[in-house]
């Protein structure tokens, strides 16, 4: 995630009522009636109610909810495939619900590309022609659109399939075409509606990974809809949880897991494999003691004894991590009468960033006994993770 993110889309007070007397339904909503009561009294469905959120430039935002939570309605309101009943959707200063039909066409062409659950490829067009579709309807010259389509197909690894028809491809490949069609368009926001839900689990994992990489590479603002929490936690920079047409919680995957907004979210997050999601930052402890390179071996030994450590990390003045030294080495150095431990520092030590997942940490313990160092980008020591802490986190994950 980049810092200093700008807001790309602001969604304010967005509501959608399916029915003919939308005013009445919204009135009842404002009087505090819930979805099923409104349905009972007016026969109208409150699809979305007072949705507020921001989409940041370049982020991968996941909107997640079970079926009927309104997530598909929400994504379709953004580009007005479904007309919102009230509220604002502001993208680059334009308020989408108020655009004229003509301006809406331009807005869709400039800002939104969409990837669909069942791919929605045009069966009468070749892969290339599918990828060119968005450019074609904008009247982009033939050569330019051929080039852009070829680039997009390359991005998703479909070189050599340009002249095939969609029905000649596997599901995973078809969705790559869908992705290429969206990427070729070079719009500012990518909308993905349950894009991987129709794929089988293995391919789905691969596609998620590729999407993450692609997204990091291109920094394209992406809104991804899913009903699968694992998927949401895996790919999302931030997650919006929807229930019955309302936002329940907005947060990073870790926030959703570790501080659920209410019982619903807590129940929902049960059974998730947290080891993939909870990060090193969470399991890490402050360092009890550190050594300096210029310390003598006896000083270092004393520090270790005081803090009952078998090994100790060595840092410089700026807390930058230099290496590790264990008690045995320090003892030998002391007996040999060495002045400082500088020559004994072992720079082969386990070290991770704060966002590393627990499952990865756990696998690092199998062949090392020393705690894992957690460092920031400047290599400054933030803390350490001991095996027990990882186990503890994994264990609480199971109960939650």
């Amino acid at each position: 995630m980049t810092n200093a993110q700008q807001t790309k889309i602001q969604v304010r007070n967005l509501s959608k009522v399916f029915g003919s007397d939308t005013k009445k339904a919204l009135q009842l909503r404002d009087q505090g009636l819930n979805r099923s009561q409104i349905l009972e009294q007016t026969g109208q469905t409150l699809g979305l109610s007072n949705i507020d959120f921001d989409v940041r430039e370049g982020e991968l935002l996941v909107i997640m909810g079970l079926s009927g939570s309104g997530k598909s309605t929400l994504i379709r309101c953004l580009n007005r495939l479904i007309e919102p009943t009230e509220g604002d959707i502001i993208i680059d200063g334009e308020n989408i619900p108020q655009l004229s039909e003509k301006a809406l066409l331009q807005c869709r062409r400039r800002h939104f590309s969409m990837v669909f659950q069942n791919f929605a490829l045009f069966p009468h067009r070749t892969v290339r022609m599918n990828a060119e579709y968005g450019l074609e309807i904008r009247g982009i010259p033939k050569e330019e659109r051929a080039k852009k389509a070829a680039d997009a197909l390359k991005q998703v690894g479909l070189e050599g399939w340009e002249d095939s028809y969609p029905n000649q491809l596997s599901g995973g490949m078809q969705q790559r075409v869908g992705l290429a069609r969206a990427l070729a368009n070079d719009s500012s926001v990518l909308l993905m509606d349950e894009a991987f839900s129709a794929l089988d689990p293995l391919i789905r994992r691969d596609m998620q990974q590729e999407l993450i990489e692609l997204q990091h590479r291109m920094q394209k603002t992406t809104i991804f809809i899913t009903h699968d929490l694992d998927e949401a936690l895996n790919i999302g920079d931030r997650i919006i949880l929807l229930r019955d047409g309302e936002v329940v919680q907005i947060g990073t995957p870790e926030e959703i897991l570790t501080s659920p907004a209410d019982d619903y979210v807590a129940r929902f997050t049960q059974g998730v494999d947290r080891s993939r999601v909870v990060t090193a930052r969470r399991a890490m402890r402050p360092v009890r003691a550190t050594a300096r390179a210029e310390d003598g071996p006896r000083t270092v030994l004393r520090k270790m004894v005081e803090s009952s450590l078998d090994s100790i990390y060595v840092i410089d003045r700026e807390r930058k991590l230099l290496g590790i030294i264990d008690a045995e080495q320090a003892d030998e150095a002391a007996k040999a009468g060495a002045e400082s431990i500088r020559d004994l520092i072992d720079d082969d030590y386990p070290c991770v960033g704060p966002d590393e997942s627990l499952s990865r940490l756990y696998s690092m313990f199998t062949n090392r006994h020393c705690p894992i160092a957690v460092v920031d980008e400047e290599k400054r020591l933030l803390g350490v993770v001991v095996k027990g802490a990882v186990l503890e986190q994994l264990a609480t994950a199971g109960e939650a």
Partner: protein
Amino acid sequence: MDFEIPRIPLGSWIESGLNFLTTEFSGVTRAISRTTQAGINLLNDGLMWLPEWALLGLIVLLCWRLSGHRLAIGGALGLALIWNLGLWNPMIQTLTLVVIATLVAVVIALPLGILAAVSDRFYRVIMPILDFMQTMPAFVYLIPAIPFFGIGSVSGIFATVIFAMPPAIRFTTLGIRQVPTELVEAADAFGSTRTQKLVKVQLPLSLPTLMGGINQTIMLSLSMVVIAAMIGANGLGSEVWRAIQRLRPGDGFEAGLAVVIMAMLLDRLTQSFRGRKRAK
């Protein structure tokens, strides 16, 4: 008490309405009549100008290219039989009427079908009209055709177009409405205009269904141009009609058989065209 509900004079209303149309729009009907007659003559003369064996060869070639050797052999035998029975010229006349009636019907039906597909209101208006057109006994159309266009082939075509058009409209509408929602959404999501959506997505995807409608229209046209012999349309129908009047069942069956052969050829040909499109 002797109380009688007066009979609603529906028939006379319709007649005065038709009379009004005939007198007020005689210029229009005459123009239509002239154009259609010119079209009939042109096509008929063109087909007659070709020697029988040449046209037969052309049709057989078409059967072979579009479908295969089985249809080609069947077509050759059937057409040879018609030629042998001396029904070649009436068959050409019937074929001319079918081709022109189908063309006119499709040209009218396509835009109406598209409109009914995109507009729910128009759909609700036109569907009962189509039901009406299809269930009204076909003979009834023959009667107003005469004051409009006089006795002859033009009247026959007028009645045929009305009778044969509904399936083309219905299938066009059906084909467009059957295009999966997701594909229409995809077209919309990328910012297609209505026309772009129609031309690039909806029409190509409804083509197989649309061809099915045209096939139906051709078959109905054929059955109607035969009936239209009663108001003076020439062709195989008038052969049958003459056989009825002279009580000559043999002649009637011969002409009827020719109609059957034509029907089968036209049906198989248009269907194979449809199948080819789909396989592509």
